[in-house]
């Protein structure tokens, strides 16, 4: 696990828009939970400056290869760069925020 050495790797401006993609496969309990968790976190921390695109791989399996999706659900932060990935049902808000660079790793 990378060790955080003080300051965030790169400062993120307040106006920066977050382009998020959530990969799921059908309406599984995990995917429903993940989307609900994601919406809540975004509303709370990124109000008005985020987009969420949900990609159901059952309908579009060919999209899995491009973002190197293995685990589901996977949240991909496409913008701001670099691309970040968080897997799981996003139930641990703290870790999601760290993963999105919205909070410094404790």
């Amino acid at each position, binding site marked *: 696990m990378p060790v955080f050495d003080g300051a965030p790797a790169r400062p993120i401006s307040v106006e920066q828009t977050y382009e998020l993609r959530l990969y799921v496969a059908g309406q599984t309990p995990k995917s429903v939970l993940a989307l609900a968790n994601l919406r809540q976190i975004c509303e709370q921390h990124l109000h008005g400056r985020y987009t969420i695109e949900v990609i159901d791989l059952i309908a579009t399996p060919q999209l899995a290869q491009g973002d190197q999706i293995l685990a589901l659900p996977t949240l991909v932060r496409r913008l701001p760069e670099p691309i970040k990935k968080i897997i799981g049902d996003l139930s641990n808000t703290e*870790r999601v925020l760290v993963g999105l660079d919205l909070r410094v790793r404790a």
Partner: protein
Amino acid sequence: MSCHTRRVPLELSPRRELPKTLTGIRGFDEITRGGLPKDRPTLVCGGPGSGKTLLALTFLVNGALQFDEPGVLLTFEENAEEMASDVASLGFDLRTLIDKKQLAVDYVRVERGEIEETGEYDLEGLFVRLAFAIRSIGAKRVVLDTIESLFAGLKNDAILRSELRRLFTWLKQQGVTAVITGERGDGLLTRQGLEEYISDAVVLLDHRVYDQVSTRRLRVVKYRGSYHGTNEYPFLINADGISVLPVSSMALQHDAPLERVSSGIDHLDTMLSGQGFYRGSTILVSGTAGTGKTSLGVHFLDAACRRGERCLCFLFEESPQQLLRNMRSIGIDLEPWVTAGLLQFHADRPSRYGLETHLATMHTVVADFKPTVTVIDPVTNLMTVGTSGDVQAMLTRIIDHLKTENITAMMASLTPGHNAIERIDSTISSLMDTWIVLANEAVGGRHRRGLYVLKSRGMAHSNELHEFALTDHGLRMLHRTGEPDGRSNQYIPERVSRDAGV
């Protein structure tokens, strides 16, 4: 059980073996009696550089090219793009296969430690990708190389393990024959214990270096519901790809042809009940240095080529050029047969490889050239690269194979000194059908050459020692006065008769 049950003799009852999928890998389909279990996953494990990926890829490429079975390669290797160029050197054109929809490749990259994990997840994404690739080309074969890489990228081992179990179960339902590669682990067949999940068939590859000589070996550790060879089999990776040696056949079941082949020397044929050797038999020619072993072999080759037979000659001492030159001095020119494509030489230094590799090479050369006559000169030089036990095992395998193919083989054996004849040759003589002993003796200021048939199974052969000379018209038998003649003579040097126990 019903009393109406028909009793079927055991040997006549139909073999209830599972359906299999041919790999097209030379030798492998023989030791597995038909290839890998059809529609089931097989684990192929081994250390780094043991040839796992190559074996798996060959399975896919052969499937596409030989059996009209498209294949999917799901690779987790970090340098997967380089793989295409690596295997191109073995004649695999992955690009073309992909373009023709005979192969689909998905490079799976797992960013090590880069992924944040929060809460429950599964590996459905992997399933989706695999299913998509299978569907896109109607794949019948799948290779996962090397799925253990997932353990480096994802932290939750418990999820990984349950998902792998699910994956292998799922694979069985897809109607695909799968090969899963795994890195050899400490005390386990694979690092992550994949053998726990894949129980249908397990193949172990090994690459050993012993005495600075490298040998690759393959073993079928497990094959549920099927007979298989349990030995370690040497295998080769060369310009033609991978080939495994089914080195010892399951039983002594060679045909015993009655056809005879000439030794190329009329008088010797006469000594062998008038008709020469049995076709498909193995002949040992032993003697000390300079007794004419090679000359005898060359006569045999020359005669076979005259009959239009294909001949293969393994040389472990001389180069083909040396042999051709030397044999011209006794009036035998083999060059035309080489030009005509009837005779092929295969010269190697014995120390160049280990015994298994020699064996594997000889096997491959025989399979490619398809000779009916083979000469190995001298077979004893191979003893320098192994113990007598190893050499005997290897010769048994070669002879087994040659007999199965009905190839008549003559092997020259160099005996270091007079007294050692029996001892040295006893390791291999029991494998031989015919044993001809050559001996030199200086008698009355003259160097005299003698020849006798020590044994020849299945025929009434001469028991006398016959004198011969190497003339510029080849090997000629002599009678007592030293003149070329077809009759036997009484030349029996004392020492030789004692050695031979006559």
